[in-house]
């Protein structure tokens, strides 16, 4: 008996110690919240919460440990209630409770919830047992449906956002550095234009020679001037006319015939007077 009482006393001391610690850290946390709320950072708030929860945990462990006798079996019994101020009690409770009277005792010595709270708890537990497993399953399914729908909506939104972001990154490609460089190089230095120009300037004389060839059949190589070649051609034609008289058409190959025909039509009535006329025209 003696031993049990001692054990209880030790356990109570330990409990009081732990509760005291808890109270102290609560007070410290509250004063911090009241005085330093402007400068306090979220991590330090979390630190305080961690401290409190650690202390609560150790209190719970203590209550469950084997060294502590089962407190439920102990009976606490108010022997006397008095409406007068009790100085000792005031000191013990740090001026929180002034008298051990009818008003406070039911609150402080309560071992069960309040009757109306108890009633509410009972009601909800009854309601929970009313549901048959079928109904519960149905409700579960409905809940799952709703949550999966919400999940779908969230996912589709996420997809939309991601594709938007992708589009933005693809839109960013509105200018290219290499194009800029190429454009500047072409405007400043004609990069990409000069080679083209060189090609065309080489091909140009060839075309001219080809077009001139039929007219200047006699003159070989580069013609000194258009007027001179005309004279030569005309002269050649007159010579040809005399030489071949009426038979020239049969002796020539088709290609050369046509070229001579051209010149002939030009110079058919090329008497010396007409010749000098055309010469004058050319000179003018």
């Amino acid at each position, binding site marked *: 008996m003696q031993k049990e009482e001692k054990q209880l006393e030790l356990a109570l001391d330990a409990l009081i110690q732990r509760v005291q610690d808890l109270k102290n850290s609560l007070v410290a946390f509250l004063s911090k919240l009241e005085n330093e709320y402007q400068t306090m950072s979220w991590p330090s708030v979390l630190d305080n919460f961690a401290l409190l929860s650690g202390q609560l945990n150790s209190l719970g462990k203590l209550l469950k440990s084997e060294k502590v006798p089962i407190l439920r079996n102990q009976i606490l019994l108010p022997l006397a209630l008095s409406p007068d101020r009790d100085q000792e009690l005031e000191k013990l409770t740090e001026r929180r409770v002034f008298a051990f009277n009818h008003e406070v005792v039911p609150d402080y010595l309560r071992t069960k919830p309040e009757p109306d709270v108890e009633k509410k708890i009972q009601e909800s537990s009854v309601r929970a047992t009313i549901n048959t497993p079928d109904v519960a399953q149905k409700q579960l399914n409905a809940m799952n449906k709703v949550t999966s729908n919400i999940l779908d909506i969230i996912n589709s939104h996420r997809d939309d956002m991601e594709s938007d972001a992708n589009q933005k990154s693809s*839109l*960013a*490609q*509105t*200018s*290219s*550095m290499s*194009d*800029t*460089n*190429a*454009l*500047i*190089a*072409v*405007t*400043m*230095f*004609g*990069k*990409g*234009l*000069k080679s*083209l*120009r060189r090609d*065309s*300037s080489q091909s140009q004389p060839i075309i001219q020679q080809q077009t001139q060839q039929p007219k200047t059949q006699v003159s070989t190589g580069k013609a000194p001037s258009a007027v001179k070649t005309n004279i030569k051609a005309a002269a050649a034609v007159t010579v040809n006319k005399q030489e071949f008289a009426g038979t020239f058409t049969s002796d020539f190959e088709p290609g050369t015939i046509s070229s001579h025909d051209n010149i002939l039509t030009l110079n058919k009535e090329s008497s010396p007077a007409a010749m000098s006329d055309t010469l004058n025209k050319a000179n003018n």
Partner: protein
Amino acid sequence: MDQMISKVSKFAPTNEFLLQGSIMENAHDVLLHRLRGLCDNSDSPFETFTDNEMIFSMKNTTITQALNLRVRHSLIEQDSWQVRYAGMAEMGDKNRPTMVRHVIDCSTSDNIVLFLNELGFRMDHEFVIKGFYFHKGRMKVTVSKIYKMNQPGNTENLEPFSTSSLVELSVVTQQSGGEGIAEDMKSFSEQLKPLVQLEKVDHRRLQNI
């Protein structure tokens, strides 16, 4: 040339501040509308130009660098001819927001080509440039496409050089007193990002590629 510039600069603005970039075909219209909103006269229709630019150069044994003159004439208003000397654009250090180059612009008559040929200049290359221009205060913005001329002298038979368009932001100022304008240009170019990156482009590097 520098002496000439210092002479000319007494009565004409010769300093050109320049930023360059390009815009791809797909964003071309977006850029035009943004520029229209940002620049002056936003309620009037787009102002366009079609020019033929011929670059005449004179090489000399005494001058290692060929002297280039750019003759430009409008294909819309046939009488409008201009000749421009443009120096090499200087990048400056990193703190300088734009390139700067010496420029002399001069309006001329249509016989400038003959005149330059008589002086000993020879045409180096030519192209057709078509585009839009905007202005905002002193700043000039051009968005233009460059066209190759398939036949020399024929401004009808054209082939686009690139699908992208050249974007240039420039201001021509007096030799002195152009301090604030470069900052203005920089902040204007920021408003066109990320559509166009208007930047300093090292022309010397491009020439050597």
